[in-house]
């Protein structure tokens, strides 16, 4: 049953992060991508038991360091965005090959990524616009896309120019093929890659809009959950 919430407007950024956090099972090992996904950490409930992985080599990462007396800035302790962070009791450190083996080997439960585009079949484009003068830089995006048991994407449903970011086929270069499970947007939450052909998109819930309105604006094969 698609839950249509028409008594309110679309989700703000923090609200989107809270919705993603709501859907992360307690006790999961989770990697939060750089940018918007980082906000999810602020909404994990106290005692959730979620352990955050950062691909530069740490499990049980704590919040960003504030530079106060209890959490001084330590240049040797950063997250994947190179922001100084803290360690929680029970943290561990490991080198890069181990960190990515952990990811590629399917040991992480969830990863949350931003995206330029997601295709109905679960293809992800989030590393390169393909512009001829752009310098390609991939970082850990491709490793994350294919590694975690569940890949969640967090993005606005429409680009600034009004074009949908949930598409039939990505026009930007791919980060991973058929790798995305769910897409969390300001207007709706979707499950992608469903149906007999693996190219169906289920609308799980909407925010400030209806299923029919979305079906009119998107060029992908939507179905009600």
């Amino acid at each position: 049953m698609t839950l249509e919430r028409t008594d309110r407007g679309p989700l703000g950024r923090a609200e989107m992060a809270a919705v993603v956090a709501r859907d992360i099972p307690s006790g999961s090992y989770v990697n939060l991508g750089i940018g918007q996904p980082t906000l999810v950490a602020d909404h994990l409930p106290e005692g959730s038991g979620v352990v955050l992985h950062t691909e530069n080599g740490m499990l049980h990462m704590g919040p960003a360091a504030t530079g106060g007396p209890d959490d001084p800035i330590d240049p040797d302790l950063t997250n994947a965005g190179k922001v100084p962070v803290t360690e929680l009791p029970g943290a561990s450190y490991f080198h890069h090959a181990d960190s990515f083996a952990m990811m590629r080997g399917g040991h992480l439960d969830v990863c949350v990524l931003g995206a330029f585009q997601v295709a109905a079949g679960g293809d992800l484009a989030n590393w390169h616009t393909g512009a001829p003068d752009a310098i390609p830089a991939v970082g850990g995006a491709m490793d994350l896309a294919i590694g975690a048991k569940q890949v969640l994407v967090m993005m606005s449903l429409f680009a600034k120019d009004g074009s949908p970011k949930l598409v039939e086929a990505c026009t930007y270069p791919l980060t991973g093929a058929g790798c995305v499970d769910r897409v969390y947007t300001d207007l709706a939450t979707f499950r992608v890659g469903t149906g007999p052909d693996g190219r169906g998109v289920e609308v799980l819930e909407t925010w400030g809009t209806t299923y029919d309105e979305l079906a009119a604006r998107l060029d992908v094969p939507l179905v009600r959950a």
Partner: protein
Amino acid sequence: MSATTFHETHDEAVAGVEDGSTVLIGGFGMAGMPVDLVDALIRQGASDLVVVSNNAGNGDTGLAALLAAGRVRRMVCSFPRQSDSWVFDGLYRSGRIELEVVPQGTLAERMRAAGAGIGAFFCPTAVGTPLAEGKETREIEGRTYVLEHPIRGDYALIGAHVADAMGNLVYRKTARNFGPVMAAAARTTIAQVSRVVPVGGLDPEHVVTPGIYVDRVVAAPGSGPAAGDLQQQEQA
């Protein structure tokens, strides 16, 4: 390789790097970046280098300064473009440097493979993307993989925290990053550390990089990836 040697200066530690060498440079951003060794490599003068590092330099110091000095022919990295990577950006846009972009985990695993004597390996990362174009693929038990080859270094420059007199290394926190894999992947590994302790000064259970992988160590004032809190290692 023979026993680890210990050096008074960074210049002495990087002596002999030949033109055309492949140099693995540790660090993720500034964490674990062997800045003093890179500065010494600039003074040493080797050119036509292939540099393998996660990023392509920040600001105007360290790796960025090596690039600015025109010593690097080819950069192999996962994430060259950053807010402060103007040196690399300028060289790339004017066609004065070659770039090979490698997914971060594949970059680490290709060096791990080199250190471990693996000929090549099938990896699921990048399948179906532009970074797998032209590479051999194979389906194994229903999943598609792309063939990736090892990256060997002639030299590795890494930052570690403490060395003992056997060349065993420990690191600090996320500054460990590429250090252990690069140490094993290079013919000659050069480590800058905060300090050297006598044999017995490190608990063998806590050693991260055994001295067999470490050829030269330099501990000099101000050395090490960060002059951080030593207390944890002293307890180790």
